[in-house]
């Protein structure tokens, strides 16, 4: 508990994923974890980089192939794609999300759908009298 320097790192777990992904996207071709570590500067442990890369792999944001005794990593999506995946996970994990996030539209019943098509299908001249 005395080591306060660890705290910002815990908070920035998602930010680390983004940093690693950005670094990987700057590489020309597949890169190793060691290359990513160098790229990000010295404060990240090699094992941390591996952990983050594995997490990104589970999210489908990177792919890897065996290169000799280690893996070479390739980005499979950009930062926005990663954010989209994470957002989907947040939304899917929250059954009552309408209560928190005001959604643009809510789901339609079949009757609603028919009614909506009728409303929108009406020629403008008919409604504007």
């Amino acid at each position, binding site marked *: 508990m005395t080591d306060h320097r660890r705290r910002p790192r815990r908070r920035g777990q998602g930010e680390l994923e983004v940093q690693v992904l950005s670094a990987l996207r700057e590489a020309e071709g597949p890169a190793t974890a060691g290359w990513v570590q160098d790229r990000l500067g010295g404060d990240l442990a090699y094992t941390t980089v591996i952990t983050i890369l594995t997490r990104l792999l589970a999210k489908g944001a990177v792919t890897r192939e065996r290169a000799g005794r280690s893996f070479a990593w390739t980005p499979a999506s950009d930062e926005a794609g990663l954010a989209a995946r994470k957002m989907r996970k947040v939304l899917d994990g929250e059954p009552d999300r309408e209560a928190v996030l005001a959604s643009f539209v809510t789901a339609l019943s079949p009757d*609603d759908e028919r*009614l909506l098509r009728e409303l929108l299908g009406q020629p403008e001249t008919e409604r504007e009298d």
Partner: protein
Amino acid sequence: MGVFVFLPLVLPLTAWPIARLAEQRLHPGTATRLLTGVAGVMAVCSTVCLALLMVVGTAQLPGNPLPDGWSDPEVRAAVPYDEIAGRVAIPALLAVAVVCAGTLWRHGRVRRRAHRALAGLPGTEVAVLPDETPYAYALPGGARDRVVVTTALLSCLEPAERRALFAHERAHLTARHHRFLLVVQLAARANPFLRPLRTAVSYTTERWADEEAAHAVGSRRVVARAIGKAALVSRGTPRPTLAGFAAPGPVPRRVAALLEPAPAVRNWPSLFTTVGMATWAAAVGTALSAMSSANSAVTMVLILHAATPL
């Protein structure tokens, strides 16, 4: 004395007609404020009433940690069936506390997680996510309000309709609609009789944002089309709770409302029409209910205060 002490628990029932009429007849902004205010007052009164019933009814039960003085015989005389009411009030109050805390916690958690998911993106107000599921949200975050929208939704809208969508979400954020929604949600948890008000307010906030969007893009029809297209393209996930629901859902009603002329901001209908009389009667009735609800709660506090050396 007598049964009046239970009034705050059941008076929310009297708000149903105004919830119904306000969402149809009043400007959505007025309706949102009115219904949220009523729901908040009634929920607080109902919870205070529950807490006092609990104190009065149980303070003299053996093993109770509360001082005996809190349950003076005079006070208990004011509460019919004080022991039964008191015992019932304990689990009820606990349930209210637990679900309300849960609601607040979930609210914070979803907002935090959603902001974290967007952490890697540039800090622009609109975050466009490449996703084949069409959705759009307003994500409130103090200084970092954001509009989240997916490419799938944007691709089905024309430029003017996209502007309508963004204007709609911005209206949610600038008018802090999530606060109204949170209040009515907590109110509905505190007293289940207030649930129709929550449904009404979640509809009126959407209508309110629709009206703001129509004002911003200068065309009601464009907003109607944007809502209609977005709803039709995201219809793939019907909520099981809505299955078999006969009345038209909120989306067709919003579109229909946009195809009508804009509602006036101060459009309390005239007293001399049938609708006007109904609306006014419902509003006055609800106001009286809210006041007598508050009155009952305050009276109980006063009795308790007078009879006990606090």
